[in-house]
């Protein structure tokens, strides 16, 4: 039986790229791929986050679990995460998750000795691995921000201490994925929208007066249309601002001009927005996502090819079955 190839060759066009922000177009593929990418970026690209906290001294106002939880949510630079092992299947340390292949150790020692409240922040966490450190949110490119002012550049606040209070702990960061706990999710937001195709029925539009046109344009909460000052024609200024809220269509119907506008979502064209927590660069996040998706697909393919269907389900198999 000759198989028909459904293979497509998606294209990507990057529109904007910053360390923690990425906007790109994904074309010639369908919603399943787009959504799979979104889901993988949110929940399955691994990062490193503090997972185990050993508290030696805690005389702060927050209780141990609270501090441990806060520590866990601090984003750590996780470029290494793809190469690291999950501590559960690390064979170097018999799964106790404390070896260099699967974990990074942090120390925190803070004590307030002055009358001024001491802010304990992510900057106070000392890492055993210089590649895995709390994300620095200061923006060196921003000229408004006084980069040398340490008071404003103290990182994520963990707890505030008053005189005499102390916090001393050891923390172990491990590799993990967002599916297990949101702290491992590298993505703050990943979203895509269908690219809209907007067709204005020019003939019908011409039957409108200028006021009607303006009020019609106004009916959209986002600025999709505008009026050309010269020709007084309605033009589409920003199709992507359209949120599929159908406001303009309803307005046209209310004006008795059914069919004034035709808006359709292109089935094969998506505009992605990726915002990273800083753990992984947004571009890297996307690449990692593709990598993970490939691994998952490999697992599926292998399962078709191999006759023995037992040992094929490695770690990815678990994910495939929805583990």
């Amino acid at each position, binding site marked *: 039986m000759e198989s028909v190839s459904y293979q497509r060759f998606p294209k990507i066009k990057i529109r904007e790229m910053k360390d923690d922000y990425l906007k790109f177009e994904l074309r010639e593929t369908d*919603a*399943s791929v*787009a*959504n*799979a990418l*979104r*889901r993988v970026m*949110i*929940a399955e690209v691994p990062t490193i986050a503090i997972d185990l906290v050993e*508290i030696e001294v*805690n005389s702060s*106002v927050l*209780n*141990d*679990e*609270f501090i441990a*939880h806060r520590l866990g*949510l601090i984003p750590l630079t996780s470029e290494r995460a793809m190469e690291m092992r999950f501590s559960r299947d690390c064979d170097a340390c018999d799964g106790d998750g404390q070896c260099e292949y699967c974990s990074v150790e942090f120390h925190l020692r803070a004590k307030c000795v002055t009358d001024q409240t001491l802010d304990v922040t992510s900057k106070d966490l000392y890492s055993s691995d210089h590649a895995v450190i709390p994300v620095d949110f200061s923006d060196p490119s921003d000229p408004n921000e006084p980069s040398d002012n340490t008071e404003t550049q103290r990182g994520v606040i963990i707890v505030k201490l008053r005189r005499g209070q102390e916090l001393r702990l050891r923390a172990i960061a491990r590799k993990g994925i*967002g*599916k297990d*706990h*949101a*702290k491992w*999710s590298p993505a703050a*937001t*990943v*979203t*895509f*929208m*269908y690219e809209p195709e907007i067709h204005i029925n020019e003939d019908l539009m011409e039957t409108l007066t200028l006021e009607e046109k303006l009020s019609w344009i106004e009916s959209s*909460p*986002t*600025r999709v249309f505008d009026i050309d000052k010269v020709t007084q024609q309605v033009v589409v200024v920003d199709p992507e*601002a359209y*949120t*599929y*809220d*159908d*406001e303009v269509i309803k307005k046209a119907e209310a004006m008795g001009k059914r069919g004034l506008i035709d808006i359709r*979502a292109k089935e094969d064209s998506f505009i992605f*927005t990726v*915002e990273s927590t800083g753990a992984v660069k947004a571009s890297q996040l996307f690449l990692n996502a593709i990598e993970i998706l490939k691994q998952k697909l490999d697992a599926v393919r292998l399962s078709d090819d191999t006759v023995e269907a037992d040992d094929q389900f490695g770690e990815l198999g678990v994910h495939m079955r929805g583990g």
Partner: protein
Amino acid sequence: MSNPRINAPIKDIRSRTNRKRLLPFECRQAKVSYTGKFEADVCFQYDGRPVIREKYNLGQFPIMLKSKLCYLRSADPQQLVSLKEEASEVGGYFILNGIERVFRCLIMPKQNYPMSMTRGSYRERREGYTDKAVVIRCVREYQSSLTDHSSVTVRLYYLRNGSARVGFWVRGREYLLPVGIVLKALVETTDREIYENLTCYYDEKYEKVKGAVGSQLLGERAKIILDEVRDASLFTQDDCLQHIGEHFQPVVDELENKTPYTVAHAVLKDYVFVHLPNFHDKFSLLIFMLQKLFSFVDQTSALDNPDSLQNQDILLPGHLITIYLKEKLEEWLRKAKSLIQDELAKNNTFNFLAVGDVRKVMDKNSSVSISTAVESMLRSGRLATQTGLDLQQRAGYTVQAERLNYLRFLSFFRAVHRGASFAGGRTTSVRKLLPESWGFLCPVHTPDGEPCGLLNHMTCSCRVTSYFDSQGAVKDFFDIRKSILGVLTSLGMIASLPKLVHAGPPKSLSVLLDGRVIGSLPSSKIEKVVAHLRRLKVSATSAIPDDMEVGYVPLSIGGAYPGLYISTYPSRFIRPVRNISIPCEEGQDIELIGPFEQVFMEIKCPDGGNGGRSDAFPATHEEIHPTNMISVVANLTPWSDHNQSPRNMYQCQMAKQTMAFSLQSLCFRADQKIYHLQTPQTPIVRTGAYTKYSIDEHPTGTNAIVAVLAYTGYDMEDAMILNKSSVDRGMFHGQIYQTETIDLSDEGSKSDRSHRRFRRSNTDRSSHSLIDSDGLPYVGQIIQPNEPYCSIYNDITNSSKAKYRKGSEPAIVDYVAVDTKSKNHLQKVNIRFRHPRNPIIGDKFSSRHGQKGVCSQLWPDIDMPFSGVTGMRPDLIINPHAFPSRMTIAMLLESLAAKGGSLNGNFVDATPFASTVRAANAGEANSESESLVDELGKMLKSNGFNHHGVEVLYSGVYGTELTCEIFIGPVYYQRLRHMVSDKFQVRSTGPVDQITRQPIKGRKRGGGIRFGEMERDSMLAHGAAYLLHDRLHTCSDYHIADICSICGSILTTHFQPQRRIVRDIGGLPPVKAPKKVVCHACQTSKGIETVAMPYVFRYLAAELAAMNIKMTLHLNDGA
């Protein structure tokens, strides 16, 4: 007794050297009472010899927090924090054994106001009585500003023959006197004077005129009353006093050997109209009451409703404590007196003048018990009294002030209970919401269910009058009354003088000041007088107090009995309204009004239009703001005017069971249980009350992004889906703190108390990882169920006993507090455990609109629907079916407003009735203002969102657009304290009852849930016989009994111990000996059969046998 004083609380009364202050937080932690030493001088006098003064310690008297003697009294927030209290500590409660107890205010009948009543029980008093009476609850006069505030109720019953009886209670018995005798006994008077006084209200001219209260029957009745006295051959005042005196001599025991004249005098003084010291005043009041009674009987005036707030006052803690203390002191003195008298009679050597001797006798009568009695009253809320103190209930005067959250705590101080006696009653009329309570009691804030309508809460503007004026100085009631009297006489009041006969309504109206008939005013002048009084009330310069109540009851046809009732006494409800009838330049225009006068006033409310008022009666007053009619908690519901009213009631309930940021001084507390929300937020959509009452100090919830859609089916029937990632990030995280107090001096026998201390065992090293060398746990240690957490060592037996954690979940040791009071070694320890309570399936949440729901799933973030534009996923999904029938429009508005507010970065004001207030302020011209929805929609639209608050969402699973636009936005959600972890109950096998061998009940003990009769019925209906058998038999008390088929008994069979004859066969396990069961009665094992039966059956047989009933079973094979 003189010179009483209470000292401020000090530590450890035994050691006199170090007198340290005892602070409230120490009491809470050490589980002791916050009390001060109560001392007084007792004066002894015997046979007119000189007075001996002797100081007595009357025990430790409970001290209210923030009262004059409390150390927190003058502390500012910063000092409060340094005293380890909340910065916003309000006080007003007591600490008894470490527990905070607050007085539950009670509704009482209005004091010193004669009320016409109908009660079926009046008819049963005696033959000839009707069900009609006029009742007055007299409260002792406050001539000196500090009096005991005790009350005596006097009833004036109407008899079928037209006469009346005065009834009052002495020593738990009601005494009934003919009214004529009392009238004559009170004042030296003549029959003619009484006759004239009684008939003056009837005038043929005014018959059938509006406001006439007298009828021609008055003369007849007066005659009957006087005839009664004459028939008893009592003619003069002395005759009457003699009669009364003889009657009461055996009743009042202190007066046993006094003359009847003195007895009668004392009775009239102490039991009849106790609020009036003057007998002439008593006489005039009795005449007034008779007139009211007759008019009530003739139906020229209407019945007073005792359930209406118009005729009600409030019972305050200070008043109850005073009268209770008074009674206890009197009891003590009486006992002391009799002890000394006994001693004098018995012992000849007893020298009364020798202090030591007296002291010895007095020591038999413990003086400390007085304060103990007060303390135990506050601790248990129960009055231990013989007389009843003229109160309707004995118990329930105090409740524990739970600090579950700030709103709950606050509500304890605003709650007013109708009285426990009504709680059990079948009548529902007391629970009814009456219009008279408008502005004083919140119509929204009452629990649903059993105490509905009985437990009310004061509105946010409602206050209660006290002995203190607005400046905090003690009021001088004598001066106040004098100035009121002066003002009234200058305005044309004819003062009431003895034997002066006044004309009655409608010509003139009686004026009563705090239950004293002070005169009468011509009805033509009265309106002006009332207006003038109100003006004086408002003006700051006059001597008329601003909280005086001018209860003007106008003339009407068959309405309330007319008159001018002026009240100045404490414990009345008052609330501020704006007086718009007086010119505003007089400075203030805020008048304090009471529930009695409110009924007859014209107050307009912005939300009520003109309220159906005609032009003839223009509004004289105006509500300050419509939200003044609801309580503080109800004021926190945003836009509650857009909700269906029961939803607001539910919210008031749920706000009080919210797990919130309960305390800022959490680390100094040792409460039994504290619920604490880890990550609270302040609501984006907030009412004015949030700022006014600084609710942000104790926030109660989180702004969650709520999507309203039917998704996955897990949001059916008020279930809700939480986003797992949101929960991971800390949404609604919380913990329960639970304190165990271990007091070595409390437990165990007395003998080994001193030998016990905290120490861990040296021999048993297994617990060393959990318990430190001091016998207490490590702070931060996780303790699993059934692990020890502290160890007590006994010096004598040389053994140590550990305490084990109960329950089924691990706990973390949060802190350990030790009592350093005793010098040698620790006696008392507080160990606080922390239970993490992060949201799981089954936990309860609610919005602020009575929309509660249970978390049904923690749904993965990636499977949640997302917005294509912003990429947002909801924190929480609720089902749209939650809205149509419940009509909580405000929740939808809140979602819209919060969305707009968060986009613009500001809070949104959601004070209810804001639009009507605005419309009223803007005037009629500009009344066509926009609707709220449009306003909010505009805000959204300007930020590029749909103005209805809906958004296009994409399925998180498929990435395709959802067919509908979804309503999504932030809503403030509360986490309720009902959590599965505290409630789940499951068992497969477990402990059974000893007697019946059936599973025991109770979650704590690992019992099962009852499979009851109705469950059984449903099983039968389904024909599920096998399942039924399994549940009720196999899984319950399945038992195989040996029964003797010969005699049919199951009790006589027993095992016969058998000698083993079986030889051991090498290597094989010994063969089980054949069971041999023998029947005792038949002496044989022939007929023994085994039958499966419930074990209780055997128990039944045994019980019956104990009653000499033999049960015989007939066995057959059942074919």
